[in-house]
């Protein structure tokens, strides 16, 4: 097909075009500014009402508290864009942490063994979730509802619900307590996960395919995309990130416990949706997820500083999440 109007109308894109495209990649969303405005409003409200809120220490605090949610939310962004859901992430974290601590205690007390065991366990749970969802065509809501329960049960079974103590100082330094270029490592790992997420979603072939699978699975299939493999990969990515979060948590507390972070999957999903992902698939972006997670973290932090009782915190958090989604959705 050669004819029909001019062949090459496209001028080489200028540098400013390129810069604009990068900005669009990072900030895009239905109404991107609403999210940032919501965040700023939150900051202003808490700054005015608590003298301790506006300090570097407190912000590092928020960063540390949101680490686990933020890391896993990067993976959840891929999953929700691909029209799936993963309810098992908190249980996967618990199981991966147990696997890492037990592997270290069994083999040489080596931090590398621990890291591989933790990440590998997370990836494996993700792989199983992905295969069950795509090969047996079971909705991922049900598959991961099942693995939520199974992974938690396994985590408790391996030690009969006892925590496993970790003693490797290098492990603590790398994943929990050290600093990297002056940044506390949990925050550094969060940033690393974000950057990898941005590259994968916005610049890699994988991201293109994820958007297509979530935007219209049939059209993606008809365009030669292996929709099952792409969906499974998103689950593996999320499982692996749950494993990373497990390393960070266990290194910070010098132990792995099977009953940690119960219910955290809801915070993760809330962060992703707040961040502008469509639950109907095909839309979303990593930076939005980061801000979604920060909003939830800031809320938790600010409400504590204000001395709100913890049951009341839950009520306020829930109401603000619903209100924010109502305002930011198109």
């Amino acid at each position, binding site marked *: 097909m050669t004819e*029909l109007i001019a062949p090459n109308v*496209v001028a080489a894109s200028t540098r400013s075009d390129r810069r604009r495209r990068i900005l669009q990649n990072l900030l895009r969303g239905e109404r991107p500014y609403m999210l940032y405005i919501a965040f700023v409003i939150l900051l202003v409200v808490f700054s005015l009402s608590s003298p301790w809120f506006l300090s570097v220490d407190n912000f590092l605090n928020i960063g540390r508290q949101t680490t686990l949610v933020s890391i896993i939310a990067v993976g959840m962004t891929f999953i929700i864009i691909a029209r799936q859901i993963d309810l098992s992430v908190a249980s996967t974290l618990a199981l991966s942490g147990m696997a890492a601590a037990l592997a270290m205690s069994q083999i040489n007390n080596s931090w590398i063994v621990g890291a591989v065991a933790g990440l590998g366990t997370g990836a494996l749970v993700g792989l199983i979730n992905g295969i069950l969802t795509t090969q047996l065509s079971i909705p991922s809501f049900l598959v991961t509802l099942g693995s939520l329960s199974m992974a938690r049960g396994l985590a408790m079974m391996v030690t009969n619900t006892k925590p496993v103590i970790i003693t490797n100082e290098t492990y603590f330094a790398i994943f929990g307590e050290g600093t990297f270029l002056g940044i506390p490592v949990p925050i550094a790992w969060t940033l690393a996960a974000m950057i990898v997420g941005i590259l994968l979603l916005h610049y890699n072939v994988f991201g293109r395919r994820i958007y297509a699978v979530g935007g219209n699975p049939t059209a993606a299939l008809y365009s030669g995309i292996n929709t099952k493999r792409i969906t499974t990969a998103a689950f593996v990515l999320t499982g692996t990130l749950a494993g990373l979060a497990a390393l960070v948590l266990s290194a910070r507390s010098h132990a792995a416990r099977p009953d940690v972070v119960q219910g955290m999957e809801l915070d993760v999903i809330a962060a992703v949706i707040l961040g502008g992902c469509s639950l109907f698939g095909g839309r979303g972006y990593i930076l939005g997820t980061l801000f979604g997670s920060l909003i939830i973290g800031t809320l938790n932090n600010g409400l504590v500083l204000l001395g709100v009782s913890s049951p009341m915190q839950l009520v306020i958090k829930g109401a603000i999440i619903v209100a924010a989604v109502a305002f930011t959705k198109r």
Partner: protein
Amino acid sequence: MELSGSVAAESVPSTSLVMVRAINKRFGGVRALRDVNLEVRASEVHALLGENGAGKSTLIKILSGVHAADAGTIEIAGKPVEFDSPAKSREAGIAVVYQDLSLVESLSVADNLLLGREPRTAFGFVRRRALMARAEAFLKELGIPLDTRASVGSLPFAYRQMTEIAKALMGEVRLLILDEPTSSLTSDEVRILFDAIGKATRRGVGVIYVTHRLNEVFEISQRVTVLRDGANAGTFVTTDTDMKRLVNAIVGTDRSVSIGARTEPAAKRELDPSPVLSFSSVSNDRLRAVDLSVRKGEIHGLAGLIGSGRTEILETVFGLRPIESGAIEIEGRRWLPSGPADAIERGVALVPEDRHVQGLVLDHSIERNVTLPRIPHFSRWGWMQQRAAARRAESAVARLAVKAPGASSLVRTLSGGNQQKVVFGKWNDPRPRVLLLDEPTVGVDVGAREEIYAVIRNAARDGSGVLVVSSDLVELIELCDRISVIVNGHVARTLVRGEIDDAEELHHLLQMYQASGLSLSQELSA
């Protein structure tokens, strides 16, 4: 045209029931209906004919309150009515039985019939026995042989349709609209359906009967209205007309003449004799011993009714349906596709039937859609070459003359014709060896249609083998070097250009093969 106010034939009832006058409807830039008139009388079966896109569905949707007309009036029994919702239409006594049924499959026939108006006790509990009795009495009165206790999901298709019709007739129904009710029925089932329709008309119900099968028109209707390009193309008393005149009205004599003149030069084109795609006795769940060949540079048409297996032939080549026996070859090499990815790799491209569901990601940009099947070409080590992808999309927009602000525009915002050009843009470069087209101009306005024809011809001239499915017979005649007639998953006949003069002849041929094909399939199943 044919019909004046004085209908003499005693077979046509005389009490006017529904009067539609000068209805107009516009969708964006497309005029779907222009000054359409229709009169249905009490106890009459009034057939409504026309090609796909002629405006039948739009007219039905206006009568059923799904769409509002832009201009024009509807009267029921002399009283003007205005529908702003399906509920209003239903209230006025109009019931529609759609092709896709609206029954709850897990419930019984009786439950479905009385859904939402179950007899109940003072406390809101359903009175099962009263419900069953009422459903049974109603079916008996209609003479429809249905088991009220059977769950709808377990019934054969014809009986589900019967349930649907019975449900439509519950309550005060004056006009029953049937939209292609026989498209998936066997001839025995058609018989049962016609009986049920007869029982309804005897109660004074008027029926609008939409169909593509002309023989049915002569069997059950008293009058026929034909729509073409959104306007009336004639209303006939069935006993005063014949198939030839109906086909003329459907296709439009003027259009087929002008096209015959224009396509003359194309006929003289010489074709490379080597087949780029060939089927030898290919069978699977929907195809029976299909023999077919498409030459390099040929445009080969597949004609047949919906459900005949036309689309399935394309799907089989594209790796969406496994081959059970027989063989497909592409450029002389055996072709056993493992899936669409494999097919695309081998140079097979498909422009699917439903561009919204199968062809496009509507909420994504033109760029994302155009590059979707070519992602490997626009990446190095897995990283997108964003600029190369953008450039390709821009050039596809320019080359196919897609009317859009730019390649970053969302596909959802484009008109039907421009959306279809984007689907073609997906397969623009590299040139596909085999280009499969399924209804390439459905929902595309006339101007864009010509542009799409040019794109198809160019693809063939550049050496692709093109296999095109279309319900628009004029389109097939205009485009194709050869046309294969598909009946019940089988190639009934392959026609070479020149063997057939116009769409009218092709239409007759299709009807003829369909009629004989039906009896053939019964023999096979017996």
